[in-house]
C-alpha cells in the first residue's frame, strides 16, 4: 500500500486522484446533499429560496437550532444525549424576559446572568450524569419536564415582552454599514470576501505544514478546485445577503461559534479527549483522561449554548412565551444525526451538525414556500432523517 510517488509517478497519479475524490465525496457527502436539496427547492420555488430576503430569514430561523447543535454534538460525541435543551432555552428566555421587563435590568447584565443560569442548569444535570452515572437520557428527560414547568410558572402562563431595542438586535439586527450603501451593503460584502481569502490562506498554510511532514496525499489540483469552490460560495452568499440588509448579527455570532467549536473538536487536546471518551470510555480512562470531568464540562457547555439559543429566540419573537423552545431538542438532535454523528458516541463533526441543521432548515423553508402543510412536512423530515442515517450506516458497512 505504500505508494512511492518518486519511483512510479505515472502509475500512481490516477489512483491518487480517484482515491482522493472518493474520500472527498465521503467527507463532503452531506454538504453535497445540502447543495442538491437547495438546488431542488431553488428550481421548485422559481428562485424564491435564494432571494436575499428569504436567505436572511433562513439564517434567522435556524440560528438557535445551529447554536444548540454545536453543544449537542459534543454531548453526543461524548456518548450522551440532552433532551432538555428546548425546555432550558425556553426557561432561560423567560428568566431574561422577567429580568428585563419586570425588574427593568439593562440587557447586558441580563444576558450575562442568563448565560450563567444556563451554565448552572448544565452543571446540575451534568453532575448527576457524570459523577453518579445516571443515564443522561433519564436525567435530561427529568430536566425537560422540570424546566418546561418552571418556565410556565415563571411566566404565569402569560407572554412577557416587549424587550429593549438593543436586546432585540441580537436577533433582528444587522451589521452596520460604514459605507452607507443604499442597495448594497459593502461592509458585509467586504467581510465575506476577506473571509474567503482567510479561509484559502488558512488551508494553504495547513497544506504547507502537511507537506513539511510528508503527509499529503491529495493532488494539488483537487485541493485548489475544492477551496476555490468554497471561496466562491462564501462570496456569493455574502453578496446575496449584502443586497438585502447585510450580515445579520446572529449570523456573526453563529459563525464565530462554529469556527470555535470546529477548532476545539479538530485541533485541541480537550476535543480529542471527548472523542476518546465517547469512543471507548474505559480505554480513555486508562490513558489518564479524566472522563467524568470531561462529560461534566460537556453538559455545562450545552447549558450555556441552550441559554444563548433561548436569548436569540426570545429576541427574535420580542417576547417570552411559555411555549418557547417546545420541541427544539428534536430538531437539534436530528441535525447532529443527519450530520453523521453516531448514537453510540465517539463519532461526529461540528460542520456535519451545522450542515444537518441547514438541511432541516432549508427543507422547512422550501416546503413552506411550496405550500406543503405542516403535517406532511413532518413526515418528509422524519423520512429524511431516517434516510440520512441509513445511507451513513450502509456506507460504513460496505
Amino acid at each position, binding site marked *: *500500500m505504500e505508494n512511492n510517488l518518486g519511483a512510479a509517478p505515472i502509475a500512481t497519479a490516477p489512483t491518487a486522484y480517484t482515491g482522493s475524490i472518493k474520500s472527498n465525496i465521503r467527507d463532503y457527502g452531506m454538504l453535497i446533499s445540502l447543495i442538491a436539496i437547495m438546488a431542488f427547492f431553488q428550481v421548485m420555488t422559481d428562485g424564491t429560496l435564494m432571494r436575499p430576503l428569504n436567505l436572511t430569514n433562513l439564517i434567522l430561523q435556524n440560528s438557535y437550532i445551529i447554536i444548540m447543535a454545536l453543544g449537542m454534538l459534543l454531548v453526543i460525541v461524548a456518548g450522551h444525549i440532552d433532551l432538555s435543551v428546548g425546555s432550558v432555552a425556553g426557561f432561560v428566555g423567560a428568566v431574561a424576559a422577567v429580568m428585563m421587563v419586570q425588574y427593568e435590568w439593562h440587557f447586558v447584565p441580563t444576558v450575562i446572568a442568563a448565560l450563567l443560569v444556563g451554565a448552572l442548569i448544565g452543571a446540575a444535570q451534568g453532575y448527576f450524569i457524570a459523577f453518579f452515572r445516571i443515564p443522561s437520557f433519564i436525567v435530561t428527560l427529568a430536566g425537560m419536564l422540570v424546566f418546561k414547568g418552571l418556565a410556565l410558572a415563571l411566566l404565569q402562563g402569560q407572554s412577557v415582552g416587549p424587550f429593549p431595542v438593543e436586546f432585540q438586535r441580537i436577533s433582528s439586527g444587522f451589521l452596520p454599514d460604514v459605507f452607507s450603501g443604499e442597495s448594497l451593503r459593502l461592509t458585509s460584502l467586504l467581510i465575506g470576501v476577506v473571509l474567503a481569502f482567510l479561509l484559502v490562506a488558512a488551508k494553504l498554510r*495547513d497544506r504547507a*505544514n*502537511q507537506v*513539511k*511532514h510528508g*503527509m499529503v*496525499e491529495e493532488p494539488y489540483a483537487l485541493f485548489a478546485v475544492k477551496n476555490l469552490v468554497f471561496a466562491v460560495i462564501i462570496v456569493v452568499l455574502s453578496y446575496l445577503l449584502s443586497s438585502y440588509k447585510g450580515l445579520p448579527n446572529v449570523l456573526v455570532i453563529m459563525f464565530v461559534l462554529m469556527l470555535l467549536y470546529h477548532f476545539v473538536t479538530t*485541533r*485541541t*487536546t*480537550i476535543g*480529542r*479527549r471527548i*472523542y*476518546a471518551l465517547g*469512543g*471507548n470510555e*474505559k*480505554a*480513555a*480512562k*486508562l*490513558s*489518564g*483522561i*479524566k472522563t467524568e470531568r470531561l462529560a461534566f464540562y460537556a453538559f455545562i457547555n450545552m447549558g450555556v449554548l441552550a441559554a444563548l439559543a433561548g436569548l436569540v429566540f426570545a429576541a427574535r419573537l420580542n417576547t417570552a412565551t411559555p411555549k418557547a423552545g417546545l420541541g427544539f431538542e428534536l430538531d437539534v438532535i436530528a441535525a447532529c444525526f443527519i450530520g453523521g454523528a*453516531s448514537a453510540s458516541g*465517539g*463519532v461526529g463533526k461540528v460542520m456535519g451538525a451545522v450542515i444537518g441543521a441547514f438541511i432541516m432548515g432549508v427543507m422547512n423553508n422550501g416546503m413552506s414556500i411550496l405550500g406543503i402543510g405542516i403535517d406532511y412536512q413532518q413526515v418528509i423530515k422524519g423520512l429524511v432523517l431516517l434516510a440520512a442515517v441509513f445511507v451513513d450506516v450502509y456506507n460504513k458497512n460496505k
Partner: protein
Amino acid sequence: MADAILEMRGIRKTFPGVVALDNVNLRVRAGEIHAVVGENGAGKSTLMKVLSGVYPHGSYAGEIHFQGQERHFKGISDSEKLGIIIIHQELALVPLLSITENIFLGNEQARHGIIDWAQSYRKTQELLRKVGLKESPDTLITNLGVGKQQLIEIAKALSKEVKLLILDEPTASLNESDSDALLALLLELKAQGIACILISHKLNEISKVADAITILRDGATVESLDCRKEAVSEDRIIRHMVGREMTDRYPKRTPAIGELALEVKDWTVHHPIHPERVVVKGVSLHVRKGEILGIAGLMGAGRTELAMSVFGRSYGQRISGKVFLHGKEIDVSTVQKAIRNGLAYATEDRKGYGLVLDQEIKGNITLANLPGVAHGIVIDNGLEYRVATEYRSKLKVRCASVFQQVVNLSGGNQQKVVLSKWLFSNPEVLILDEPTRGIDVGAKYEIYTIIAQLASEGKSIIMISSEMPELLGMCDRICVMNEGRFVGEFTAAEASQEAIMRSIMKSAKAASEN
C-alpha cells in the same frame, strides 16, 4: 473415503479485491478431533463461515460434502439442522438469563408456544452432567466464570444433537485447569462419535488432543497431517504456519540489569463490589532497570487486579500499601499521576480497555500523552503525524497509513498500537498484561523482540502472562501469584513449568488445610 464425515474441496472465496481462500481442502473423518491452525488472517474463520453457511452456497466456489452428500447451505440454520454447530470465540450467551434459558434459547422446549419449564430443567441437568458441571440450571450466566460459560456453550450444542462441533479458540481466555477440563470433554465427546474441528493457537493443546491437523497459510491449505500415523512436532507445525524456519521462538537477549526501579510494598486491594473480599493480600514486589519480571499464576489469581490497582487505582477499593520509584515514594492515586510518575499499563483486554477502535492509529498512539504533540491545548497535526509514523515504522505496525482505523487491524498490529501508545508516554516501568493474547506466532515473536529491545534500553518490564513458556522464554525473574498472594519466586535459571505449578499447588493446598 467412506469414513469422512466432512469434506470440503477446492474452496475459493473472494472479497472485493482480496482472495480470502483459494483451493482449500479439509477432510474430517467421523469421530476425530481435527485441528485447524494458521496465523491470524490465514483464513480459518472465513473457512468456518463458509462451512456453517454464514456465506451461503453460491458466494464461494468449491464443494462441501457432509455425511456423504453434497450440501448447499443457505444459512446457519441449514447447517445446524444437520448437526454442524459452531462455537465462536466471543461467547454468545445472555448474561442475565439462567443456564436453562440460555441452553434452550431459540430452541425452547415448548408446546403451542408455552414453555415446559419442568422438562427444560430436567434436560438441562442432564446436559450439565454430560459436560461435567455441578451448577444449578437456574444459575445466571453472569455468575459463572469464562471456563464454565464455555462448557455451557458446549452443553447448548449437545442439546441440538451435534454431529460436528466447531470450536473457535475455545481456550483463549481459559486458565490451564479449565483448558484441561475442556480438552478432556472433547475427548469424551469424541468417544461418543462426535467429530470436532478445533481452531487454536495453542500448539501444546493441539498435540495433546488432535487426531489430524490441517494447516492454512495465506488462504490456502499447506499441509494436512495425520497424528495417528506419525508424530508431529510443534516446530514442524510452526514451520508450516509461518512458512519459515523458527529456530528460536524467543529473541536472544543479554540482560543488563541495573539499579532498583519500582518497588511496591505491602499492597492490599479489596474487591470493588464486595469490600469484604480481599483480592490482593499484602503483595510486595520490585523490579530493576533493564529487568523483565514475570508474574505467573492462574486466571483469577489477582495479577491483573494487582497491576490495575497500582496503575492509578483503576481497580478495587480500600487500597493500602506504598509504591516507590528509585527509592522515592510516588503518588499513584490517579491514572494521570501514575503516568506522570513513569508507569504504564498495557491491558490484557485490547479492545475493551486499550484502544478507541473507531479512531485512527494516529490518535490512539498519542492518547496517553497528548501534551507531547500539542502546543498548549492545540494539537500540532504535523508533529502528531510524525510521531505516529515513527512508532509505526519502529514497531513495524502493518497498515496502509496511520490514518487507518485501528478496528481494521489484526490482533498483533493492534497490540503494537497499544505498545506504541505507552512507549510514547515515555514510562520507566511498563506493565504488560498478557501482551500476546490472541496473537499469531509470527506477530508474537515481533512483540517479544520489542519487549527485549525496551529492556535493553533500560526500561523495567513487568510481564503478566498465563502462558508459562513465554514467561520462561522472556523473563529474568518470575514471581508466582495465587489467590492474591505471591507464593513463589524464581530466577530465570531456576524456573520451570513444573516448579511454577508446584508452588501454586502447594499454596492452594496450604490454604485449604488452614
